[in-house]
């Protein structure tokens, strides 16, 4: 097996909440999505800074 910096092939970790069961990995992805969306809405956009 290729050695990687972080080995994700160990048994997965799961979060349980009522009938919801979600892997830590998926929860991280979904959390990042929400954070990214909020950041994109909130952070000011300056088009001039991208012009050359």
């Amino acid at each position, binding site marked *: 097996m290729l050695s990687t910096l972080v080995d994700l092939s160990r*048994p997965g970790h799961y979060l349980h909440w009522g009938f*919801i*069961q979600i*892997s830590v990995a*998926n929860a991280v992805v979904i959390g990042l999505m929400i954070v990214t969306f909020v950041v994109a809405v909130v952070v000011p956009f300056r088009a001039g800074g991208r012009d050359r």
Partner: protein
Amino acid sequence: MSGTAERPGSDSLAVASRQPDAEPWHGPTIRYDLVKEFLVAVVAMAVVAVALSAILSSPDARPLTIRQWAQADPSDFVATAVTELNGTSPTATYGPPYNQWASGEGQKLGPLGIERWAGVHVPVDTSVDFVLAPLGVAAQSDPALAAALRQYASATAGRQQAWATAYGNGLAHAGFGDGGVTLPPGRYGPVAPMMTGLLDMARTGSLDADLLASPQFYGTDYTKPLLFLADGSFMANQAQAQHLTGTQWGMMNETGNYPGQAWLWLYTMWYQVKPFTTTGNADALVWATMMLLTLGLLLVPFIPGVRSIPRLVPVYRLIWRDHYRRLAAASAGTVVPPAAQQPQRA
């Protein structure tokens, strides 16, 4: 700031903003380099993907084989094989597209028996394909097995069923060693040596090879070995350990700690809740539900109420806050645009 790159249009910001949504924009514009933006996006995504690949790699859990199954859990393998022989396994009683039902109609949507309409297009006869045909190959070098097969073939259907049923019952108290299957005394007929023969084939890997073999040498269709594997508990146990089963939101998950398919969350959610958990028509019902919701997503622009949500949830005020600030500033005591550009009340 975008100030130096902004150019006024033929309309003022206020006038242009008030025009109907379908009208082209003639208000102020800013420089926006689409090609550069696209190339930056490609490079950015490539960099992130390469970084994630270098740090995290990707999952590749080795595929299961019938050989593994037979070696790890010979009891489950043989128990499954006997149901394939006597036509009581999940695959044998599946119905279309693999075979016709002896009774019943499969999953339905209310009165609609859609599963039945499509017909048998992937024919699988489990007793022949999974048991008798592979044993026929092994029997070419095993006279005792050949004799057992002849005895089985010449018996009546009722007698065949009786042997298989007795064998299945006897398995509950069977022992498994290098010598094969050790059963308590019973009337198993030729089924006992047949199952031992099949177990031998499975343990050596020749059953994998036989099920994969295609009549024309090259094959890319793994229907038969996969259906056989899925009928037993071995594969399901592996999946359960990896949180991949239906009641574990498995559709979203990946082996190990890798992220899976989060976008399937709504599809798999229904399998966790009533009435889907308690009906035999779960798959058809979930599909119908998702088709309906997908249609809803497609037709959002036309659905009253849903299409008004953006106006009621003030995310848009944040997204366009600069625009609204400038609009407010523009309309506070600035020059009224030329009459020709003023919107008139109809």
